């Protein structure tokens, strides 16, 4: 805070509490600043795969599927490694670091990505 500074432990706890009460909960977003009466309210920036524009998955420039920038098969496992969100794919951090090891090229090798049995 700028005008009232918390000095002892209790005041620091009140400050933390007040900050936690401010605004709303924003999942998957980078939080902007500003409380009530703050003229410089900044926007919240969403993060996560839903807003990432990854062109050329569904259609190519001609409206077909022959010239996609990324092969349609890549969709099978795009949440693996590229995203932190716990989607329905094996986790790459602890248990299945080699899940896609046999899949060098998505279009050719996608059948090597097998089921896992935890």
């Amino acid at each position, binding site marked *: *805070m*700028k*005008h*009232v*500074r*918390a*000095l*002892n*432990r*209790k*005041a620091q*706890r*009140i*400050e933390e509490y*007040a900050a936690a009460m401010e605004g709303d909960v924003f999942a998957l977003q980078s939080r902007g600043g500003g*409380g*009530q*009466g*703050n*003229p*410089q309210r900044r926007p919240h920036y969403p993060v996560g795969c839903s807003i990432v524009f990854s062109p050329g998955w569904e259609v190519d420039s001609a409206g077909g599927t022959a010239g996609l920038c990324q092969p349609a098969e890549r969709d099978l496992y795009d949440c693996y490694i590229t995203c932190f969100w716990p989607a329905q794919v094996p986790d790459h951090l602890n248990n299945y670091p080699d899940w896609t090891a046999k899949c060098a090229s998505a279009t050719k090798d996608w059948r090597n990505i097998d089921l896992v049995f935890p």
Partner: protein
Amino acid sequence: MPYTAGDTHAFEAAGQQFLYLVPSGGIVDLNPVASAVLNRVKSNPASREDLLAALPFEAPDIHEAIDELASFRAILDNGEKVEDPPQDVPDKFPLQTMVLNLTNQCNLSCGYCYEFGEDKVATPDGKPKFMSWDTAKMSVDHLFTESAGRRAIHMTFFGGETLMNFPLLKQVVEYANEKAKAEGRYIDYSLTTNATLLTPAIIEFLAENHIGVTVSMDGPKEMNDQLRVFANGKGSYDIIAPKVRSLLDKHKTRPIAARVTLTAQVTDVLKIFKHLKHDMGFHEVGFAPVTTSPNRLYAIENNSMDRVLDQFKTLAYEYRDAAVRGEHHGFSNVSDTLMELHQGINKSHPCGAGLGLVGVGPSGDIAPCHRFVDSDTHALGHISTGIDKAKQQDFLQRGHINAKYDCHSCWARPLCAGGCHHEAFVRYGDTGHPNLHYCDWIRGWTGLCLEIYGEIATRNPQFLNTFDRRKTV
């Protein structure tokens, strides 16, 4: 909607404005904008628009200052009420500390003693004078069982004169250490003594076992010997001085403190502190005015109490200057209060008596604290059968801050909570009565310590890290 002033106590230190928040116990400092907003609201309820129009600051700054003050409840939105919700006394509260009165016998006959003097609450007739091993063992077991969930627990040995039953003390320490080891827990010890019976062997045992020692001593010979005397009237100073020196010389594993009782005859705080801290070498020196009915010869009269507070002030400023330089001073009344202020303690009860702390008398009676030991009226149960929950609830409900009407408009209530249960009983015949005779004194003292806190927070804030951890009894 106009803003109104919340419950706060404003103070100044090091040229800076501070606020003590009541009842939360928070301490904040204010810049000129926040200060102006608060002062304006205090003089008259004012809306956001009023404040924007009246104060000579930029609008965004005023907006921010209002929001920040409001978030600390230093100012309140119109109609907003700060809830000071009555907290029920918990059904189950694990013990932290047990005070074991090893004996009710004493080899001194101090004129002001609350245990034997005219204001005594103890009714020791027909009860054992020395605690037996069976009672002590049951007490240790009780402490361990009733403190379930706490890793660290504490036991204090008390009397009478504690060291008149040193063999039992030794046995208890050995037994409790083993028990703690077996349960993977930590227990530490302290004791209060008049130092008359200290021997090299006892000192060695205390040092080896890290037992904290508080020596009751009232200063240099001419003051100590006024009331701290043997039964024949002979002063105790000459006997204890060499023993205390040897204790301070050999026992280095815990800080050793002196505890001074101030009476009508003994009020020269500065001289006493100088002697005990510098001539004797105590780590800390703490003072407390004698607990007594007002008509006793040793009771301190009001104007003498003002003189005591003046001297406390001088010593407290010495403490402040030492703290700003980052040095230890040793006036424990200040460090105890600063610790509570730093934590922002807000008490439902003046102390842990009957809640996290109990006293056990030589007969095995459980009392709210050592001061009520051996008193039939105040017993909360017996160590063989445990605490009588109904009696405990009654004691705690009467001592609760919500039961003390007079305290509700006082800004010092988060720390004081009405003051000592025992003092209240001696003065007013009710443990739950607020100690109205020392309200001005408490506010004066708390105000002084706040000022010192502000000064240290501004000039040497690192010093306050010493108080990050709560000191146990």
